């Protein structure tokens, strides 16, 4: 790897991507559809399609599999996720959901898997495929799923319970995280596999608009060829690293939304004859939000830089997500607090940011870079 210059500024390509997504997000936020989608518990198909049309997911897939063959860049992906999440976290996850499936197969799958699965989803039209990592139990650890896969003949038999599986009902395929012979690994499972029981749509603390489901695997049989990467499995640690960096990017965007909304509110809200932002108690919270959002973004970029250099980013990704998890909760809390009673009312978005914010520390594997 060549020794690239160290630097903090976006390239032209990076800032034009940021601007494009920001513009798209802004056009979607007018009239507050993020609020409406949350209330209606439904993401607008139109919005998802518009994000998909940007082509960010499939652009780096080689042409032979249906993509455009452009250079893959984890940093570029963090920029995309931050901008989307600054609009709506549920949208950021839903609109980029196929990336987790596609990038994983592309980078870790066998040749056969790439040929078979990539063209199905690398299409001009958004087709849902999803990832099932989280499990509904106390002490859940993404690095050591309780879901188990056992090899029997030419098949793997998978048993276990998953939760927070976005769009599981409509997904053509699911990537399932399961333990096999003491190692965490990923399996490709067809949506209509009879061993897959998709439950009732979940009700969760945050992301009301994102359809997510519990999934039970009961003696779910998959061909041995559908273990990602083939017989010896895949680099699951790398998979986790990339999803952790993605969650950090989403946390950055979400926190930024809370910060910007609270900042503007504080300049307009007049009490005791002047804007509340003129008081240090509020102004200092806003200052803290400003630099912690930046810190979150820089931690995300640092981990993404390591990935982009082809280096193991275990430590950087872990610390970035730990930091983003803690800070997103703190800053979305600040957002509600600065608005006071108005922050508690669902007409203002900060209560939604607050509910969504808890997810950054908890959720795993729902997005990737």
């Amino acid at each position, binding site marked *: 790897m060549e020794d690239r210059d160290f630097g903090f500024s976006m390239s032209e390509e990076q800032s034009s991507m940021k601007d494009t997504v920001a513009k798209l997000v802004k056009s979607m936020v007018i009239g507050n559809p993020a609020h409406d989608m949350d209330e209606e518990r439904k993401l607008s198909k139109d919005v998802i399609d518009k994000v998909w049309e940007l082509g960010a997911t499939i652009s780096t897939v080689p042409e032979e599999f249906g993509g455009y063959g452009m250079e893959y860049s984890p940093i570029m992906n963090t920029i995309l996720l931050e901008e989307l999440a600054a609009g709506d976290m549920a949208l950021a996850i839903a609109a980029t959901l196929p990336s987790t499936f596609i990038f994983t197969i592309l980078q870790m799958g066998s040749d056969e898997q790439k040929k078979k699965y990539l063209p199905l989803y690398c299409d001009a039209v958004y087709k849902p495929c999803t990832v099932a990592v989280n499990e509904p139990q106390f002490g859940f650890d993404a690095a050591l799923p309780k879901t188990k896969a056992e090899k029997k003949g030419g098949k793997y038999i998978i048993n276990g319970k998953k939760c927070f599986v976005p769009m599981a009902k409509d997904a053509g395929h699911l990537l399932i995280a399961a333990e096999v012979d003491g190692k965490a690994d990923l399996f490709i499972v067809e949506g209509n596999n009879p061993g897959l029981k998709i439950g009732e749509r979940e009700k969760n603390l945050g992301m009301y608009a994102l359809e997510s489901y519990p999934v039970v695997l009961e003696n779910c049989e998959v061909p041995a060829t559908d273990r990602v990467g083939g017989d010896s499995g895949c680099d699951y640690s790398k998979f986790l690293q990339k999803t952790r960096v993605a969650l950090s990017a989403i946390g950055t965007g979400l926190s930024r939304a809370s910060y910007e909304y609270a900042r503007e509110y504080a*300049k307009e809200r007049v009490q005791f004859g002047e804007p509340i932002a003129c008081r240090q108690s509020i102004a200092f919270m806003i200052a803290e939000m400003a*630099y912690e959002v930046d810190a979150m973004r820089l931690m995300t970029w640092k981990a993404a830089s390591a990935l982009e250099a082809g280096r193991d980013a275990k430590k950087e990704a872990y610390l970035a997500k730990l930091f983003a998890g803690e800070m997103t909760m703190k800053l979305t809390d600040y957002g509600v607090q600065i608005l006071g009673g108005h922050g508690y009312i669902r007409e203002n978005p900060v209560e939604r940011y607050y509910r969504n914010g808890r997810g950054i520390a908890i959720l795993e594997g729902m997005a990737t870079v």
Partner: protein
Amino acid sequence: MINLEMTQKMVDVRSGMNNMATSMLRPISRHYDEHEHEYPKELDMFRSMKIMARPKKKKEGEEAKPEKPGSKKLGSNLSMVIVIEEMCWGDLGLLLSFPNAGLGNAAIVAVATDEQMARFGDKWASMAITEPGSGSDSGSITARATLEGDSWVLNGEKIFVTCAERAEAAVIWATVDRSAGKAGIKSFVVERGTPGFKLEKLEHKLGVRASDTGTYVLDDCRIPKDNILGSAEIKQSTEGFKGVMKTFDNTRPLVASMALGVTRAALDFTREKIEESGIKLDYEKNPNNLSAIEKEFYTMEAHLDAMRLLTWRAAWMMDNGDFNNLEASMSKAKAGRYGTLICQKCCELLGPLGYSCEYLAEKWMRDVKITDIFEGTGQIQHLIVARNVLGYSSKQLK
């Protein structure tokens, strides 16, 4: 292009300085903590090192050339924050005692005329701003300078002057016209030994005891007319004062990097003890399944990374000639506060080892505290950040 992977050059600078800190600063760290006011003679060998040198002769009106972002060169400010972090990993008090590298030297290098440079360039110079009644509000200083014939006559008291005893000259801030407010504040070079210029006392401090901090008293102290730095003219605007404040945009990331060094020293020691106890830090387990000590450690390490990235960004912007008032204050606000909290927490986690003077952890907890105070307290940094992001003046947000 965004890339936060350290270049080979950065890695080399860091490891070179770390060797120096390990072999030269750490071994004498405790001694000068215990012998406050004793001059660290080991640092004499750095006397000839031109740490605060003027890079190139500047032509009238010519701005320093920003280094090209596209060049492979390591910018001088980024390089400086890496160096300072390593030196402070060694010892912050000793760093502050490096000969000929006082804040006064920075001021002289920045604004002195060639003739002044020839007279004062080789002298170790302290910087005297703070007064008993004037701390963060440096616009309210009362030390005064009166022009009498070919001399300035200075009167007043200056406290908390770093290197007060060791410096051979002092850059004294004084007002030439109190009614002009901030616009009337000028700085003057006063050499030690000048009649009427007295080192009144040396302080006994919480930390950074290797560094001598003292009080100057100026009693009808007469200095040559051309010892004034910059113009004597009182402009109607406060541009001059703002210019002085702007130099803080350059020094704040340096203070932030001091916090980085001390904090990393504390964390490195804590990691060593955690690992000696058999706990493996592998950055893998879900944070919910960690022991309290592991969780605390990872969280502190994450904050240290955040501190460093904010600091490096501010320094990198300076190297590119970008205005970094906001980012400089962000770096110091974060690094000063979290550095202090982390060093406190390390002592807590270390238990008896963190309370005993047999180890340096207790010293780091005392030393790091200064980084949230000098060159603008954490509260002042928050004010600056808040005014920037809110678009408020100092009148709108007091």
